[in-house]
């Protein structure tokens, strides 16, 4: 689906959403009630220092408004921008800052929903889609940490061998289905059904703590993460000196 088709499907009541230089910004009316802020990264744009800073500024403006309305983050990006300039300027701080303001918005009462409708990879994926409260995707979305040819180079394994291994586990190979099974994507929407209703259903879910590791365990894609994290919490709490002495 194109971005325009997606926006029409999501917001039949219309909105004012613009795409400038690959960045999405605006507001729309939800089919049910009330407004929603829309922002994002489109056209497979790589996420560099300038884009991350602009997106973060927009999120901060939304938080300042104090309206506690939901935020939809649309994602069709490349990876982080790989350049000498971006790293010279401290890209890690810009990407982390974007993730931090999205988490702040959530803490300030804005439900944040990520909609992955195209590509996204590595640092760009972490700083955008994976920093939202609920990440949903449309069929055809293609998240990746690294593409298989690059992975073949780094792991020094032939690509056919990698492809064969990818059949046996969702844990390393790129792709939407693998990201669903490992718990990163909450749900894949039905492109043939009204998107507005599917967005309303996501917004109607009560807010909850990070449940991705638990989803990964339930779906069989990441069997150990939740259990290991829980055990560490239990050990840390039970061995805390003050809990032992009182």
């Amino acid at each position, binding site marked *: 689906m194109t971005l325009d088709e997606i926006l029409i499907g999501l917001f039949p009541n219309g909105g004012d959403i613009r795409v400038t230089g690959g960045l999405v910004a605006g507001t729309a009316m939800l089919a049910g009630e009330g407004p929603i802020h829309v922002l994002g990264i489109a056209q497979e744009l790589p996420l560099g220092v300038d884009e991350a800073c602009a997106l973060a500024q927009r999120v901060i403006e939304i938080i300042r408004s104090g309206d506690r309305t939901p935020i939809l983050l649309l994602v069709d990006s490349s990876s982080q921008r790989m350049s000498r300039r971006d790293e010279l300027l401290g890209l890690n701080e810009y990407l982390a800052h974007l993730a931090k303001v999205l988490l702040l918005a959530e803490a300030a009462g804005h439900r944040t929903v990520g909609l992955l409708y195209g590509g996204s990879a590595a640092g760009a994926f972490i700083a955008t889609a994976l920093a939202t409260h609920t990440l949903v995707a449309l069929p055809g979305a293609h998240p990746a940490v690294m593409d298989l040819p690059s992975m073949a180079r780094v792991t020094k394994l032939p690509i056919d061998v990698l492809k064969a291994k990818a059949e046996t586990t969702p844990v390393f190979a790129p792709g939407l289905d693998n990201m669903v099974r490992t718990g*990163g994507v909450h749900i894949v929407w039905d492109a043939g059904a009204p998107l507005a209703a599917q967005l309303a259903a996501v917004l109607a879910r009560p807010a909850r703590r990070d449940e991705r590791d638990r989803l990964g365990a339930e779906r069989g894609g990441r069997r150990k993460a939740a259990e290991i994290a829980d*055990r560490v919490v239990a050990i840390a709490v039970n061995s805390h000196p003050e809990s032992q002495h009182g």
Partner: protein
Amino acid sequence: MTASTAKTSSLSWYEASARQRIDALVDAGSFQEFLGPEQRETSPHLAIFDLPQQFDDGIVIGRGRLGGSLVLLAAQEGRFMGGAFGEVHGAKLTGLLRAARKLKQNVLILFDTGGVRLQEANAGELAIAEIMRAVIEARRAGVDVIGLIGGRAGCYGGGSLIAGTCSSLIISEQGRISVSGPEVIETNKGVEEFDSRDRALVWRTMGGKHRYLIGGADIFVDDAASAFRQAAIEALEIKRQYDRATLEAEQKRLERRLQRFGKTADAVEIWQTIGIDEPTEIPGLPTDEFLRRTANKREDADDAR
């Protein structure tokens, strides 16, 4: 100086293992490991690639005392899979940070990582996202999370994004922070964009001195375990706020950096712009001289991180 620190004062942080770093960092004998190697919690995924496992999956976590105060600690082992984040490795850190929020106990993360472990890339990527969220939730509960960076593997990829969520960062000259590593940029964009064999370029673009000068790290130390220990004790004494004002200040700080340095081509130009005399000498300066020459000139990130 106490006997315990005197004994380890000459230990190079860069050369040390994760366990040596923890031993040298905390008050003598105070470290208690969680989910240690005897539990044999190894990666279930490396066997698919016929790769050896390690019983701690390349990260040591636990609790110790630092200058008398209880802290939670995590140390990555850069010599195992480049310190990369896999499912178990990442979940150990996620659990530690969730515990920190519950217990209101400060955390030290001893980074030494190339980023996500490709053999379990999806699990590693999600672990990074979970850890970042756990860091932020701990900080919102009043916990300080301090990163120490000076290991052989640097602090790359997703590790550098986690570093960007920490309340303060201690770095040595050998510490490197970068999302894309030199080889990754060169492979994807060509040697004209970044020559990964030009080590001087790598150090001045991603290394500890440059990060310290632009406000990407807060405390600059010698490559010695005793120096990291002293800096960690000092960092723990400063309570860092974390709220909307912090992020508004960070936004301003990062915008200002783009305005001031966005058109510069090289770190030396940036150092010149902030008013450092003889900026080409910066890479060769010993720590005390470096700190003396850059005092009151570097960009700081106090209360804006």
